[in-house]
């Protein structure tokens, strides 16, 4: 999971920004010079974004309907829905879609709730708080590639985790070798790695809640749990939306852990959409087929984003 997550509502917010540019008549000589200088400054970014962001997005749609191959002397040609038929009749695709959704559905509540627990635990001024915050955050600055390598060892049948479990009388499973456990193993590790990131975001959300609300609540005799449900939780609405959406989208993109730890196995129990897209589009060089999978992935992301916007809008309307 990458450390960079994008605020999804960004475009909406920018649209609301009032234009505070000084009014200037378009036809004047100075206005024209400004426009030229402005575009010169904008040009490098505009050209790069066009070439490496907009064109590939467009290509995802275009190539999905062709038989394009990564390296081919023949130009690609239109094949209609062939790629989609091939994708949707492939059991591995359905297993990958299922795994991607299971991964997301499990990790979103798990990771966000535990990160909130961490945030609440370290939201104190007691001695050692900085130490705990720093330690919880360390896995975030460790690359997921390194983390996957490390846990590949920890998860071995006779690895550290099972040795520790055996001390308390539990016989641990063959985490990555057993189709029933492999996906769960990857979920636990991924949550471990990224949780500190969301802890920081929860913490900064907690900071925005006015202290007077807590004072009023405790004057009214509210217990700590009542304070949490009546003050903290409603106060974190914005933070919550951001955290849910970023974890969800990052979860859909699951790839590195799978590629390093299990290669999609055992028995496709950890294969994911992105893993299949890379396998077909890179290893087998079937760009058209991979684009069709990417498009399915894109649709999933869109559904989540639009649902989230619909839900938050609904709430605002009711207020």
């Amino acid at each position, binding site marked *: 999971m990458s450390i960079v997550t994008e605020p999804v509502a960004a475009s909406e917010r920018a649209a609301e920004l009032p234009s505070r540019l000084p009014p200037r008549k378009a036809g004047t000589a100075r206005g024209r010079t400004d426009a030229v200088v402005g575009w010169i*400054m904008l040009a490098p*970014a505009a050209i790069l974004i066009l070439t490496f962001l907009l064109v590939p*997005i467009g290509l995802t749609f275009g190539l999905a309907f062709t038989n394009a191959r990564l390296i081919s002397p023949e130009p690609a040609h239109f094949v209609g829905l062939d790629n989609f038929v091939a994708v949707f009749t492939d059991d591995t695709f359905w297993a990958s879609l299922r795994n991607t959704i299971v991964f997301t559905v499990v990790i979103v509540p798990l990771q966000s709730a535990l990160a909130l627990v961490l945030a609440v635990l370290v939201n104190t001024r007691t001695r050692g708080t900085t130490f705990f915050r720093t330690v919880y955050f360390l896995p975030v600055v*460790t*690359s997921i590639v390194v983390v996957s390598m490390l846990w590949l060892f920890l998860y071995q049948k*006779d690895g550290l985790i099972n040795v520790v479990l055996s001390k308390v009388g539990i016989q641990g499973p063959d985490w990555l070798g057993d189709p029933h456990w492999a996906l769960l193993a990857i979920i636990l590790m991924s949550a471990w790695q990224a949780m500190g990131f969301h802890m920081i975001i929860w913490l900064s959300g907690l900071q925005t809640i006015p202290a007077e609300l807590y004072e009023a609540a405790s004057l009214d005799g509210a217990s700590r749990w009542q304070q949490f449900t009546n003050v903290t939780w409603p106060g974190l609405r914005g933070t919550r939306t951001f955290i849910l959406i970023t974890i969800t*989208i990052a979860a859909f993109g699951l790839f590195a852990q799978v590629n390093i730890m299990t290669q999609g196995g055992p028995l496709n129990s950890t294969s994911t959409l992105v893993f299949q*897209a890379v396998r077909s589009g890179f290893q087998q060089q079937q760009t058209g087929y991979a684009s069709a999978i990417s498009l399915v992935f*894109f649709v999933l992301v869109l559904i989540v984003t639009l649902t989230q916007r619909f839900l938050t809008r609904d709430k605002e309307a009711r207020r």
Partner: protein
Amino acid sequence: MSATIRDIADIETAHAPNPRRGRLPGWGAALTLAAKILLALVFGLPLVFMIVSSFKPDTQIFGDLGGIQAFLPVGNISLNNYVGVFDRVPFAQFLFNSVLISVLTVGLGLIVNSLAAFALSRIRIPGGRIALGVILATLIVPFEVMALPLLWEVNQLPYFDGSQIVQGWLDTYTVQIVPFVASAFSIFLFYQYFDSIPRELDEAARVDGAGWFRIYRSIIMPLAGPAIATVAILTFLPAWNQYLWPLMVTQSEAVRPAMVGIDYFKQLNTSWGQIMAYASIITIPVLALFVAFQRSFVNSIASQGLKG
């Protein structure tokens, strides 16, 4: 950035349960502390294990698993694993590649994105608002969606290899840097920051006859320190940690970054001690940067949540 958080310790305790009124009973405080310590072990010990094991021979790594010595640098401690890493693969080359790619991506990105944000924030340009809208709309598209089509695209692009023009960018530094220089998110962060700088400053400079480039260089950028730090960190980490893309676009050792190299390294050998040594070398610089620039790290992450 009204609620600026300067480092992990500075995140205010928004509502720290009022120490007088809401004081936990003694056992409650003890329980909380126990939970914190347990969690610290869960988050910290795997990394301690990684670094400690990188100094031990394989037989000892496995032998130590049963006890506390798994997390202690005891027994047969040496740098042999580190020597082994450099012996088996051109690791210095991998590291150099990673540093070069990250530094260039960050450096070029700071210039290109701040220039664009400056133009969008300060200069009235026809089509500017549409450009901004399009740039921000791309924020919702994860890189993985377009990775494969982008791979196909860069393989079609013409490339000047120093003497002639050939087809395809694969297996170069260029293909690992150029597509990641412009970033919608960086433009957004700069744009937001520039908008908070009072316009009177550049209006005055305009009256004095300063051109836009001069205003950008001498007025706006010197004031944009926090935004520069945030963008640099949020560009550096993914550039350093990049995995999916270099996995697909690099074939030769000459341009392979360290992160992809570890996968390749593991396929060459199964000495866990050496793998831990490799993992430690590529992790420790980032951990060191984190400790050194902790304020900026946390600030850049926290600011995302506040803005989202």
